[in-house]
């Protein structure tokens, strides 16, 4: 049995596997470097029709929260918005909004039409704060623990699958861990 006749076959299979994996990777998925880091320091003003803006201190009140970066002109934001409205009605987790590169009137109209699931919204029209969050497009959604540490970043539209299988379980385990560490003290 001449094993070396199989060498080209083995090489071919290895190459095929490498291409199969490599070509299905998505180069636009940039892994976030901010996981495990504290949220950046910021203090965003409110939209013109409301009183509360959104600041980093809001994320250190001991409660796990979602932070959703959105804009009224962003089509996938609109697609995921209904999910956030539903999530807010269920009261499972507070959702904070960062309104990204938007016009105040457009944002207000958009929220009136589609519903406002946000506990507080910060207006980041010039996107400087979003840059500190490592945001490079919309929508992006973060899970932040009660001490203001970033646990997860999701780039792109949040679908029901991602919410149910990834985000909400993470919120739940984080809450349990926080409760356990409080019980210890």
């Amino acid at each position: 049995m001449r094993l070396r006749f199989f060498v080209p076959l083995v090489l071919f299979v290895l190459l095929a596997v490498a291409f199969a994996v490599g070509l299905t990777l998505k180069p636009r998925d940039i892994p976030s470097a901010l996981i495990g880091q504290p949220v950046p320091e910021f203090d965003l003003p409110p939209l013109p029709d409301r009183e509360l803006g959104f600041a980093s201190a809001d994320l250190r009140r001991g409660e796990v929260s979602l932070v959703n970066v959105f804009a009224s002109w962003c089509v996938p934001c609109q697609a995921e918005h209904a999910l956030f409205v539903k999530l807010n009605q269920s009261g499972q987790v507070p959702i904070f909004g960062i309104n990204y590169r938007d016009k105040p009137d457009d944002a207000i109209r958009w929220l009136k039409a589609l519903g406002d699931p946000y506990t507080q919204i910060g207006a980041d029209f010039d996107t400087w704060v979003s840059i500190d969050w490592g945001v490079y497009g919309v929508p992006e959604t973060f899970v932040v623990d009660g001490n203001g540490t970033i646990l997860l970043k999701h780039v792109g539209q949040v679908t029901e699958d991602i919410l149910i299988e990834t985000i909400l379980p993470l919120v739940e385990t984080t809450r349990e861990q926080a409760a356990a560490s409080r019980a210890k003290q």
Partner: protein
Amino acid sequence: MIGIGLRLIGGLRMIVGVRLVAVQFLGTLLLLGSVHFSDPASAQRVETPLSDPVDEARARSVMTGLRCLVCQNQSIVDSNAELAQQLRIIVRERVAAGDSSREIRASMVALYGDWVLMKPPFKATTGLLWAGPALIFVFALIGVIFYFRRRRTSGAAGLTPAEQARVEALLSDTGDQPE
């Protein structure tokens, strides 16, 4: 551990096509000039080259090495994207403040990961990328050397002593009696 796992799952599930549309849509909006900025903070941070030519040259060299995140195959120097422009402003501000090029690059990596660098750093995960071509060359060289060695020696090794004697006889025959 859970964090890493979730990150992987999250990474695999990203819906990129839709996002791409959003980015292009944003580009169109900007082209049309329909997005305006009323925030006074942005008015203070407009892009102007640094007055000191040495600083400006250093800022440009840092910017050439930073990837534009929304256009991906351009550096932030080459890109007209809003985000690239804002990153240029940040780089210039930090150069003017006297931060080292290395510090500025490190702060960008802290935000966006190694990915933001046009030239990936040499480390465990990128070792194959950098060493790959050299490794392939070395393997090929070894292969070629073995091939020629075997070809040179196999002629003599494949013959019995009797055959070898006959070969030599034949060779010397033709040498002695040219036709």
